[in-house]
């Protein structure tokens, strides 16, 4: 029997087997200020070395201001965390892209942007959205801080093998429907924990037709279905994105890599533990109504009745979510007003996302009473957007144009919402309190977020008069 893409990458990274433990080699270790300090402290305490600084890359993204480049802009605790990262990187020889650096940005935006992530690699980060890098056909997953320390000291991880889930999306995506809508529809279909214990491989003609930015949006939210990782087999789109990128191999190394990558796909007779099929033509612009990403509907559907769910736990969860969100069953989303709009995060802050949002923003002005912010994913994305005058479109429409960072996706800086604020957000989690205690988050695509900013409520972007 053939092998899946996951099994091929796994086999090529197996260092040792010890009983049920498998020791897996890690090619790229991405780190940021929030989940690394205790791991560095652990090395220090035990007098251990960081084995491969050349495979380790750091940035500042979570605890930073999007209004100021000053490290103390969000207070002394954030500053201490940022300074700790800088000191640790200096001490252990890790390359750092700090605030103000022309290549700084959200770790999952800058890794691919710099060409650090290649097909067939293993990539880890103390951050659950590491799954993003699976868009390149790399096995990428989030880890805890103890595991960060383990990778620092050994460049390996002990891992159990995951099950495999093939999600096949075929057909042509309707106009106005985006990669964000595909992944939200998938999570709606399989559920918030539907892929627990699995690595997802996304395939099918609708996935093959996506750009690298769109593929990153898909893989990014694999964790929101509970998956360990999400993968898309590399193809011509992948190679075209990588060719001539700053840190990519060149010459004979590129040729050698390319011939390896070309066989890096699931064999036709490979076995997947589960297979899920979706038709792209069935997918509509999605909006979450609840407090987990699986609680999602098409923009024109009515908010569901809790009784419509088949099991007691889902019914109770829906009831609790509706109460928290201040919504009624049967309500239409076009009747739901927003107070805030956030365009950004490792899910949707790349140049294509900003172009899609700007196209809508160009057609109107931010509605009265709505605060809308656009936070580019990296300094390079910001620069590119400014060279295309997207910043002008946003600011003229009444959006705020900010400095790169994680920002309001989780609000570790001062970009936080107040109780009762309702936000159309291009981020990845609509958990209770995620964007601020008592705040209400609805996950949408960049175009849908921009449209909500202008109308002041949710609206089907396909009917938006551009």
């Amino acid at each position, binding site marked *: 029997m053939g092998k899946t893409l996951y099994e091929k990458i796994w086999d090529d990274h197996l*260092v040792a087997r010890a*009983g*049920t*433990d498998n*020791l897996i*080699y890690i*090619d790229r270790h991405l780190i940021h200020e*929030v*989940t690394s*300090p*205790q791991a560095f*402290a652990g090395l220090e305490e035990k007098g251990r070395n960081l*084995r491969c600084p050349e495979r380790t890359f750091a940035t500042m993204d*979570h605890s930073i201001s999007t209004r100021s480049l000053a490290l103390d802009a969000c207070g002394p*605790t*954030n500053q201490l*965390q940022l300074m*700790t990262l800088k000191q640790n990187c200096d001490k252990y020889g890790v390359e750092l892209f700090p605030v103000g650096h022309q290549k700084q940005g959200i770790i999952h935006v800058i890794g691919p942007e710099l060409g650090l992530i*290649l097909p*067939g690699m293993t990539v880890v980060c*103390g*951050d*659950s959205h590491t799954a993003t890098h699976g868009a390149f056909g790399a096995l990428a997953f*989030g*880890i*805890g801080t*103890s595991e960060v320390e*383990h990778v620092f*000291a*050994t*460049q*390996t991880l002990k891992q*159990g093998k*995951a099950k495999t889930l093939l999600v096949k999306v075929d057909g042509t995506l309707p106009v106005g429907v985006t990669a964000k809508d595909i992944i939200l529809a998938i999570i709606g279909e399989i559920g*918030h*924990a539907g892929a*627990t*214990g699995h690595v997802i491989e996304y395939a099918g003609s609708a996935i093959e037709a996506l750009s690298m930015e769109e593929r990153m949006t898909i893989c990014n939210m694999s*964790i929101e279905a*509970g998956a360990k990782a999400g993968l898309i087999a590399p193809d011509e789109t992948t190679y075209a994105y990588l060719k001539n990128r700053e840190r990519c*191999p060149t010459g004979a*190394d*590129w040729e*050698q890599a390319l011939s*390896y990558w070309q066989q890096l796909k699931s064999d036709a007779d490979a076995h997947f533990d589960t297979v899920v099929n979706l038709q792209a033509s069935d997918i509509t612009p999605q909006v979450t109504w609840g*407090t987990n990403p699986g609680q999602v509907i098409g923009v024109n559907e009515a908010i569901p009745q809790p009784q419509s769910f088949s099991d007691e*736990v*889902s019914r*109770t*969860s829906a009831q609790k979510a509706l109460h928290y969100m201040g919504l009624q069953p049967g309500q239409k989303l076009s009747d739901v007003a927003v107070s805030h709009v956030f365009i950004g995060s490792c899910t949707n802050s790349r140049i294509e996302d900003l172009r899609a949002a700007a196209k809508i923003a160009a057609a109107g002005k931010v509605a009265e009473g709505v605060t809308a912010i656009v936070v580019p994913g990296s300094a390079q994305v910001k620069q590119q957007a400014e060279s295309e005058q997207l910043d002008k479109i946003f600011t003229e429409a009444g959006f705020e144009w900010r400095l790169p960072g994680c920002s309001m996706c*989780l*609000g*570790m800086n001062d970009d936080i919402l107040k109780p009762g604020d309702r936000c159309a957000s291009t981020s990845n*989690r609509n*958990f*209770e*309190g*995620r964007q601020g*205690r*008592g705040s209400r988050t609805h996950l949408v695509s960049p175009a849908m977020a921009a449209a909500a900013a202008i109308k002041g409520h949710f609206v089907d972007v396909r009917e938006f008069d551009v």
Partner: protein
Amino acid sequence: MSGITNLRGTAAPLDQANVDTDQIIPKQFLTSVSRKGFGKHLFHDWRYLDLHEQELNPDFALNKTEHQGASVLLARQNFGCGSSREHAPWALTDYGFKVVIATSFADIFYGNCMNNQLLPIQLNSDQMDKLFNAVADEPALEIEVDLPAQQVRCKAGQFDFDIAEHHKHKLLKGLDAIGETLELAEKIDSYERSIPAWR
């Protein structure tokens, strides 16, 4: 770290599915550079009525007099979903929990428990119902968790649970995972010599 073997204690019931790590420990506490002191902020949004943690929410299970000192947390499916933050098990253990029994766990959280001597036990929903009901009837119910025998025992019944052998071994012995791997340094060296230049 010393290992876990047998535990006896009372339980706090958190009768909810999809308890995410943002709820277990919200972002405003993640700016700390230490592993310590997170227990005070555990379940902050649910546990306190105010931002400054002065006013306890009397309706929240952990705040009830009868559940003070609990070392076992009961929950429903997909416990620990979302963010990979290890601050979640740090907060749970710092508060005093040694065991979490739930219908299912998110993968990253489950792995993080193993590195913090926090035992995650998965039981089916019928068994969870029995435990929740038993604790509702008798809040001081003593629950015994026997890791070597892979069994949860209390008045409501005796429930066997599964755990991977390497996880069990690690929790029982309290091993230094990095130290163990460093003993395989030669294998890592040898693997590194085989890595192609492009990678």
